[in-house]
């Protein structure tokens, strides 16, 4: 198929066929990560800048490993999110980096839409590694790979997502992806953490966790923080744990073979009990493993997608390689 995307800004930009193509590509890259020499020359000579305006060890590391396994030169830049304070605008920061001619910028930023903003203004590919509370496409894709790994396919799955939906970019990407590929999504959490319009996005919304868990194939727990943007949305972590946490008792409401996912980092004893976190249904480390393969696929596709209107000699090269 013709994958016509130079940027990866969100799940929203892809249709079902494209999403499946990315997932298939990721599956192929997964094999490399099991080899002794975990490196292929695919992106040799390419430069990838990991531009992180927000601290994120695991996503950054995952993208860095993905880039290195594809033989790209990866550079990590930790920038301050409050560029306004420094007096340099996001555009200026990005232009400075672009002047060094990277092929791909992988960006994490605290402002929703920041990657969109950058992609409109720069010539290189932009991959969204999380923008504000908007999207986190690579996380949704690695979640999908993990669900397919354990459940065969996404179509027909009941996925329960529980926690702070309002402040979760992971959820927004996941809802879109899961719906496009035929799964149904149930959402649960205290009403202080449920934004308006979830029904319009096709989700079933519950304020009781038990209702969302019943018969679920996949349970995705979100990280809870007491303070969000200076607001207290719940009285205490203790109370949250009691009414909205996942434990062995309410987990029994889900299907017996249900898998448990978490985008990490987990708060043991808050949104997930230790017993469940260490239980056999937990696939959190599979998520991490699949993350590298998904990010390799995104880097590969973004790099190849850069010349859609190919030059005249493309046909020639294509033919020569058809041997």
């Amino acid at each position, binding site marked *: 198929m013709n994958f016509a995307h130079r940027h990866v800004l969100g799940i929203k930009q892809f249709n079902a066929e494209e999403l499946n193509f990315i997932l298939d590509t990721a599956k192929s890259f997964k094999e490399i990560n099991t080899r002794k020499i975990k490196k*292929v020359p*695919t992106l040799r000579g390419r430069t990838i800048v990991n531009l992180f305006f927000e601290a994120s060890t695991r996503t950054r590391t995952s993208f860095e490993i993905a880039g290195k396994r594809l033989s790209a030169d990866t550079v990590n830049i930790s920038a301050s999110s409050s560029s306004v304070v420094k007096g340099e605008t996001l555009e200026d920061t990005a232009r400075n980096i672009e002047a060094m001619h990277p092929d791909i910028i992988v960006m994490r930023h605290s402002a929703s839409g920041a990657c969109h903003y950058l992609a409109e203004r720069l010539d290189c590919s932009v991959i969204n590694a999380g923008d504000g509370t908007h999207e986190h496409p690579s996380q949704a894709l690695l979640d999908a790979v993990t669900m397919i790994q354990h459940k065969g396919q996404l179509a027909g799955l009941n996925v329960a997502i529980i926690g702070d939906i309002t402040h979760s970019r992971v959820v927004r990407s996941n809802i879109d992806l899961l719906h496009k590929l035929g799964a149904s999504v149930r959402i649960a959490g205290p009403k202080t953490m449920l934004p308006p319009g979830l029904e319009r996005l096709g989700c079933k919304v519950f304020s009781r966790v038990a209702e969302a868990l019943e018969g679920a194939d996949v349970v995705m727990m979100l990280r809870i923080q007491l303070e969000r943007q200076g607001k207290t949305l719940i009285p205490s972590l203790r109370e949250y744990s009691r009414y909205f946490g996942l434990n062995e008792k309410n987990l029994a409401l889900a299907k017996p073979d249900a898998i448990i996912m978490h985008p990490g980092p987990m708060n043991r004893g808050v949104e997930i009990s230790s017993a469940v976190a260490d239980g056999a249904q937990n696939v959190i480390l599979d998520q991490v493993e699949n993350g590298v393969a998904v990010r390799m696929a995104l880097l590969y596709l973004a790099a190849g997608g850069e010349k859609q209107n190919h030059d005249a000699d493309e046909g020639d090269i294509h033919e020569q*390689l058809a*041997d």
Partner: protein
Amino acid sequence: MAGEMTEILDSTAIQRALTRIAHEILERNKGVDNLVLIGIRTGGDYLAAELQQKIAEIEGVKVPLGTVDITMYRDDLGHRSNLEVGQTDIRFPLNDRCVVLVDDVLFTGRTIRAAMDALVDLGRPRTIQLAVLIDRGHRELPIRPDYVGRNLPTSRSEQIEVQFNAQRGPIGVNLFK
């Protein structure tokens, strides 16, 4: 595919050629010890499976069979729109093995270069030999096949296609002008 089509080999002729190649492989390697077959996706992997079957008929031993996908080793990323990445499937160590790399049509040699790079990343074979059904010339790299089904002089603009049936059996080789 546009233009005039000429059949180069039919199913019977292909089988004859593969049987001969199987004998040559056994002769050159003095049996099946340490021998493994690796087919290049897609086409070469189907032919490698045929060769495995023929060798089994002659020697009574099924030699290990693997497939290699060379997409990640291509040298033309960015000059084309995205190609699907297939999976490499080699479930045995390559160290000190005598590898016979199998492809359907040998042309510029760039695919073979990529496949050898891929194999070397997976281990250190003792030898790598190359078996192809058709050698159509126009090499751009110093690569020479060890076993050839048919040498076929072509012009650059012509195209060669090996056809397979639904069971992945080769049923014909056609030339398009």
